C-alpha cells in the first residue's frame, strides 16, 4: 500500500491543482449571478501567486519572514520545552497535578487576544511579546499530551525498571521519556502550526514587521491578494518546520515496529 514518492508528489500536486482550479472558477465564473468565492474576499489564485513571487523577487519579504521565523521557532521551542517539563512534573507528582489541574485548565481557556496588551506591557513590542503569545498556545497542547503520555507507560515495563533500582531521574530518561515520545511528537505536529499562529496573531495585534504585520496592513486596505499571499507564505513555511520535526521524530523513534496500518 506504500506509494512511490514520485507518484505521491504527483498526487499531492494534483490536489493543489484541483483546489486552485476550484478557487479560480469560484472567483471568476458567476453561478446564478453570484460568485461562489467573490474576488473581493478571496482574490484569485493567479494574482496571489504572482504577488507571492513579487514579494520574493522584490526582496521585501525576507525581513518579515525572518522575524516571524524567529518568533515561531522560539515559541515552539520554549512552549514545547515548558509543556514537556511541566507535563512530566505533573504526571510524576499526582498531588501537584490535582491541586493545579483546575488552574491549568482555566489558563488554557483564556483568549490570547485579550492577553496581548499584558504581554506587551511586560515584554515590550519586540519579538518577545509575540513569542509569549505563541508559547501560551504551544505549551498547553504539548503539556496535556505529555501528561497523558507519561501516565500511559506500560505498568510492567515500569515495574521492571523500578525493580532494577532506577532513580526518578533514571526512570525519566529510560522509561517515561521514550515512552511518552510518540505522544509528545503527536502534539508537536499540532504545536508547530499553533506556534506560527501565535506569532502571527501577536504581530497582527501590534508590531512593525513580520508576516502578521504584512497581513494586517493588507487587510486594512482590502488588499485580499496580499492577505492570501501572506497566508500562503505562512503555510509553506510551516511545512518546512514540520519537516524538521518529522526528521527528529523518525530518528528518535527508530525502535518502533512498522505502523500497524502499513502491514495491510
Amino acid at each position, binding site marked *: 500500500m506504500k506509494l512511490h514518492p514520485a507518484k505521491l508528489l504527483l498526487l499531492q500536486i494534483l490536489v493543489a491543482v484541483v483546489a486552485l482550479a476550484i478557487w479560480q472558477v469560484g472567483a471568476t465564473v458567476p453561478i446564478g449571478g453570484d460568485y461562489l468565492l467573490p474576488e473581493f474576499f478571496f482574490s484569485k489564485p493567479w494574482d496571489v501567486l504572482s504577488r507571492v513571487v513579487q514579494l520574493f523577487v522584490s526582496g521585501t519579504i525576507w525581513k518579515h519572514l525572518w522575524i516571524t521565523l524567529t518568533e515561531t521557532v522560539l515559541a515552539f521551542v520554549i512552549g514545547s520545552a515548558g509543556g514537556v517539563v511541566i507535563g512530566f512534573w505533573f504526571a510524576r507528582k499526582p498531588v501537584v497535578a490535582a491541586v493545579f489541574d483546575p488552574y491549568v485548565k482555566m489558563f488554557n481557556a483564556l483568549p490570547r487576544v485579550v492577553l496581548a496588551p499584558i504581554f506587551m506591557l511586560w515584554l515590550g513590542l519586540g519579538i518577545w511579546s509575540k513569542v509569549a503569545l505563541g508559547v501560551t498556545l504551544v505549551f498547553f497542547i504539548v503539556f496535556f499530551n505529555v501528561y497523558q503520555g507519561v501516565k500511559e507507560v506500560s505498568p510492567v515495563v515500569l515495574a*521492571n525498571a523500578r525493580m532494577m*533500582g532506577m532513580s526518578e531521574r533514571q526512570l525519566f530518561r529510560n522509561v517515561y521519556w521514550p*515512552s511518552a515520545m510518540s505522544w509528545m511528537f503527536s502534539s508537536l505536529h499540532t504545536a508547530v502550526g499553533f506556534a506560527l499562529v501565535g506569532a502571527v496573531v501577536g504581530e497582527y495585534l501590534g508590531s512593525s514587521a513580520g508576516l502578521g504585520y504584512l497581513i494586517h496592513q493588507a487587510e486594512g486596505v482590502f488588499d485580499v491578494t496580499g492577505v492570501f499571499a501572506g497566508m500562503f507564505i505562512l503555510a509553506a513555511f510551516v511545512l518546512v518546520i514540520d519537516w524538521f520535526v518529522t526528521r527528529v521524530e523518525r530518528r528518535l523513534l527508530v525502535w518502533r*515496529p512498522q505502523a500497524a496500518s502499513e502491514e495491510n
Partner: protein
Amino acid sequence: MEIALRQPGREGPAPGAAPLAVALDDVSISFAVKGRPVFKAVAPTSLHVGDGEFVAIVGPTGCGKSTLLNATAGLLKPAGGRVAIFGEPLAGLNAKAGYLFQQDALMPWKTALDNVAIALEIGGARRADTLAQGRDWLARVGLARFTDRYPHELSGGQRKRVALAQVLVRDPKILLMDEPFGPLDAQTRQIMGTLLLRLWAQDRKAVMFVTHDLEEAIALSDRVVIMSAGPEARIIGNFPIDLARPRDTADIRLDPRFHQLHREIWNQLKAEVAKTYGEEMA
C-alpha cells in the same frame, strides 16, 4: 501456616539464626474488582526463604504465585501480614531483589544489549564496562548475534533470555523468577538451568522460582513449595529436595530419588488441580 526450614544436603541458616532472606508471615493478598466483592487471591499464608536457599513454587494456574512474588518485590501491598527482607520489614520496593517478570518487561525502545547494559548503568558503572558485560551476558544466554535487535525483532524465547540476562547481570541478593524458562525448548531450558545453578552456587543467592515444570523445580531447588488453587490460595505442601549438590540438571533426572520425589509432589499437586477443575468445570 509456618513452614519449617530444613535444608538437607547443605547447611542453611537455622531458624532464628542469621536473618531470613525473605520472610512472609501470614501474608494475605486481595484485589478490588469493580462491582464484585473483594477477591481474596491469597489467604493468610507464610513462607520463609533462608539466605542462599533455592525455593521452587508450583501450583495450579491462577493460584497466586505471581502475586506472591509481587508482594515479595514490594510491588503489591499485602492486605494483611508482614513481609521482612533480611530481617527488615519491607517498605516500598525491595531493593535487594531482582525480578524476572512473567510478562514481557523489556524496554521496547532499547536494543537487547542496551536493555541488559542499563541494568548496570543504574549502579553507576562506566558505559564501556556495562556494554562489555552486557555482551558477555547475552552470549551466555545464546544471543551473541542478536545484541542490536529491538525486542519486537526477537522471538518470544529470545526476549525471555534477554530479560534473564537483564536480571542476572545485576547480581542481586534475592532472585524472584516467574516462569523464567517458560517459552524455551527443553534443551535450552536445561542449559539455562545449569547456568542459573552455577551462578547461584558461586555466592548463594536466595531464589524464589515459579515454574510449571515439576522436573525442573526438583532438579534446581532445595525445596519445592506447593500452592493450593485459588481463591484464598495457601501453601499446602513443602518438600525438601535432598538430592546432592552440585547437580547436573540433565543427569539428575535418572536418579531414583528424583523419581520418588517427583511422584510424591505430583500426587499432591494433581489432587489439588483436580479439585479446582472438579469445582469449576462441573
